[in-house]
């Protein structure tokens, strides 16, 4: 469990980092290292060059204004968790972050690292999908934006082109007073979720008038349960609406592995969707 040989680069500006990643063959960027370092030690990856982003200026920020939140790719998960602005404007992100690994890993782990690594159960990927986020990438050729819907290209495969670096992500805030919930089932606290469900909704005169529902753990990427969202809009919160949405979530495709069956993931999608809706409605001040 020792990494194979690689050259280490330590850029300090985005331009310098983009130049290295554009110029060097078989190069990988190093963010918080909470996944990459074990993968190096297991020799699952063998880059010739490691480009350390930890000293690059201008990649760590939380900027919430004008109904949107902008996060630098190297912003530590722990900083987002402790941001009062995030807790106020994006309460669901605050809730979700408590499920991301452990304090020790959140001190190092970054939002950009999590988005690039793309573990199927990663809470932060779910959050960006829930908010229809837009990712920002830089390369020697300039900058471009990538919608989250176009970001996941397969299991643990993102949409960055060779020579591109993720620099940040933008999320649109939901209106003050919205309800939110993040429900996750993992074997132990801090483990990657078997299934996780997030939910945002707003109520008007006792009726749901906007809803977003996102399920992770079922396939390579978090899934927005569009059909359930449609069912919920215009519905009175309560058992019938929650159950209907939960049944839709259960019907999503799911993967099996050596430990967890597809049937169990689907069952959890149903149970957690129901719970998420119940909690989100309560937080929005509704009954159900």
């Amino acid at each position, binding site marked *: *469990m*020792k*990494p*194979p*040989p690689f050259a280490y680069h330590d850029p300090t500006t985005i331009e310098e980092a983009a130049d290295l990643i554009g110029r060097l063959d078989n190069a990988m960027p190093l963010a918080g290292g909470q996944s990459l370092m074990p993968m190096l030690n*297991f*020799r699952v990856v063998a880059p010739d060059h490691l480009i350390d982003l930890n000293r690059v200026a201008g990649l760590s920020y939380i900027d919430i204004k004008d109904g949107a939140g902008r996060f630098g790719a190297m912003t530590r998960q722990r900083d987002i968790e402790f941001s009062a602005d995030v807790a106020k404007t994006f309460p669901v992100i605050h809730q979700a972050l408590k499920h991301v690994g452990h304090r020790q890993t959140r001190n190092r782990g970054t939002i950009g690292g999590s988005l690039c690594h793309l573990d199927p159960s990663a809470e932060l990927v779910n959050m960006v999908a829930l908010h229809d986020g837009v990712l920002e990438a830089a390369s020697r050729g300039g900058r471009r934006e990538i919608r989250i819907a176009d970001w996941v290209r397969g299991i643990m495969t993102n949409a960055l082109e060779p020579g591109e670096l993720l620099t940040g992500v933008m999320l649109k805030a939901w209106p003050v007073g919205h309800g939110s919930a993040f429900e996750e*089932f993992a*074997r*132990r*606290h*801090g*483990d*990657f979720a078997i299934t996780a469900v997030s939910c945002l909704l707003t109520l008007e005169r006792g009726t749901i008038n906007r809803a977003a529902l996102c399920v992770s753990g079922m396939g390579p990427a978090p899934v927005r349960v569009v059909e359930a969202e449609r069912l919920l809009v215009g519905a009175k919160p309560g*058992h019938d609406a*929650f*159950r209907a949405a*939960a049944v839709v979530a259960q019907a999503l495709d799911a993967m099996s592995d*050596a*430990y*967890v*069956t597809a049937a*169990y993931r689907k*069952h*959890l999608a*149903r*149970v957690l969707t*129901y719970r998420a809706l119940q909690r989100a409605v309560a937080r929005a001040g509704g009954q159900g």
Partner: protein
Amino acid sequence: MGWFGASIKRKEDPAFLTGRGRYVDDIALPGMLHAVVLRSPHGHAAIRGIDKRAALSLPGVHAVFIHTDLPESMQRQTVPLLVPSPTIKQALMPYCLAKEEVCFVGEPIAIVVADSRYLAEDAAALVDIDFEPLPAVADCAQGLKPGAPPAHRGSPNNLAAFIPINVGNADAAFAQAAHVFREQIFQHRGGPFFMECRGMIAVPDVASDTLTIYVSSQGPHRHKRVLLDLMDWADHQLRIVTPDVGGGFGPKGSFYAEYGALAAAALAMRRPIKWIEDRHENFLSTQQERDQYWDVEIAVDAEARILGLRGTLTHDAGAYLPWGVVLPWIAATSVPGPYVIRNFHLDVSVAFTNKVPTSPVRGAGRPEAAVVMERLMDRVARELKLDRAEVRRRNFITPEQMPYKVGIIFRDGRPVTYDSGDYPVCQREALAAVDYEGFRARQAREEGRYIGLGIGNAVEATGLGPYESATVRVSTSGKLTVYTGATPQGQSHKTTLAQIAADHFGCTPDDITIVTADTAATGLGVGSFAARTAVNAGSSVHLASAQVAQKIKQFAAQMMEVAEQDVVLESGYAKVAGSDVKRSFREVAAVAVGMPGFSMAGGPSPGLEATSHFTPDQSTYSNGTHIAEVEVDIETGQVTVTRYLVMHDCGTVINPMVVEGQIVGGVIHGVGNAFFERLIYDDQAQPVSTHFGEYLLPLATDSPSVEVLHMETPSPLNPLGLKGAGEGGTIAAIAALLSAVENALEPFGVHIAEAPITPQRIVELLGEHALGRTR
């Protein structure tokens, strides 16, 4: 007297807590090279050829050793089987490096030696091995079926051993039973997963043709015995030392094939070689406890009294038999536990598979036996509509029946005879402590919540012989040192053994240095496993200390010209009772070694030193009752342990705080076995669970707060009344936890017959009920 029985803080802790522990990997020697053990990637394969040229061409790589590079004595013989048994049909053991066949993923094939571990890993990837994959046996029950491929080429079948256990006449008992119930139970226990992986440094001394080995182990003396055999060497040529050890739990007691190969490599290189097992290797190569299939029936009379028990056990040996049949033997013979079972028949089949060998892990088969027995007791209670505790009470062995002959022959060849204990009172007190009578009412009150209580009773054979060594010596500087073959891995021996000795010398435990696990310090030694150190080493320290204290008094009496019985030992001095006249231990020790030319004839024998090898007649039996309370979320299957209580009896207690730590740790181990730990293999015996992201140990957040209560029934079998305490926390834990989960799910008729039990499995067993509120 006064240190024995006191909850003093551990002498070990200041060093451990301030980073001054000294583990094998902390040892760095000049000129030391680093080794990687190249292991089989196949569950079963023939080796057609090995090409090391590419690996050897890498700068910084010194050598690649394969089977044919080993000394003749290691090519000729396999690692010896240390615990033979007439029940063994095929005594298969590995060569130090695989010869022409590999039989599990992780079997050592080559040793790659380089300037650094990094380089050695780079080179290991370049060793080109031509394998011919062979069919593999991935499951012990499947492996015994006709037509299964052999786990070892050329074997007639996969039956490693067959152990029939017969007490009384089970079939006759079943014929007259009022009720017969059958349980088929699959049990899986994972590995030891100590915090410090295995490791070894071999240091050759080319001037004297000797070798010193530092190895993380549970006893260097048995390792020495094996290596002397493998190298055809004399006693003086080999010294083995075990420094601080970060956990052992059983499998660190085994001699692993690569240890022989590493010793040979160091001798050939004429330089020290270090090998440290990394966590990936640990999953592949450290022995595990793994799979057992039980199929058992219990016969009871109309009052739920046990008439007999019969059935079969199929045990997964893995590829070799490092501990013979000790593990399945203990499992089988531990089934009766604290209950009277006059008729018992169990046929135990031990099967080879193409997986890493199995050997005892903390509890050593007893947790599985307790699960079987306690599942049966719950079943009888449910079927006969009786209270679960009452069924157990009716079947307990009573104190009046002690010493109680179970009728079974234990693995030491002696009849299993429980020496002492009060099982009915133990259970009664445990139940009272958790308000068992009130539990049904609490359960009924909790609308929509599913809470359950489980009971686990167990008896544990502890303090197994043959002996443990203790040499107590007062050096001429006056310092007191105890040398012992006991090999601590976290058990606090340096504290508890010092407590025993201190009382003899009128000093404090801090005044006594305990030197453990060095074959140069004690000629004989056995090691620490099987909850045996307090009984064996503790008794030896007690006996040797008494002799040395006596000698101090004899010499001091002569020096002070008083009667021996007037001398008392206090604060490093031999004093004349009631006066100021005294001699320091240093002065007495100097006199005791004598002066050149001056006769000591007629006086006490020279030296303030004594050695004892306390040899118990048989095991002494600890016991305990565990009560678990759980809540089950029926929608997710998640189990939360809400309360856990242990009533434990390990005889007299040297240090209650240390025993409590052992029990709490043991219970957490049981929580892991009951709910989390599972080593998955695919159908070609390829391990799937090879890191802690997939093999789940209980975290602090999964660990209940454990309440520990003590009873003290002294053992009549040793001078201090001691019994072992290292495994009792684990043994009844799985049984109690499964019982609690089943009790919580009683409204749904869910029956638990497997361990570990996962949330997913609970949801499967609940079926439609798991829809809960979402229905």
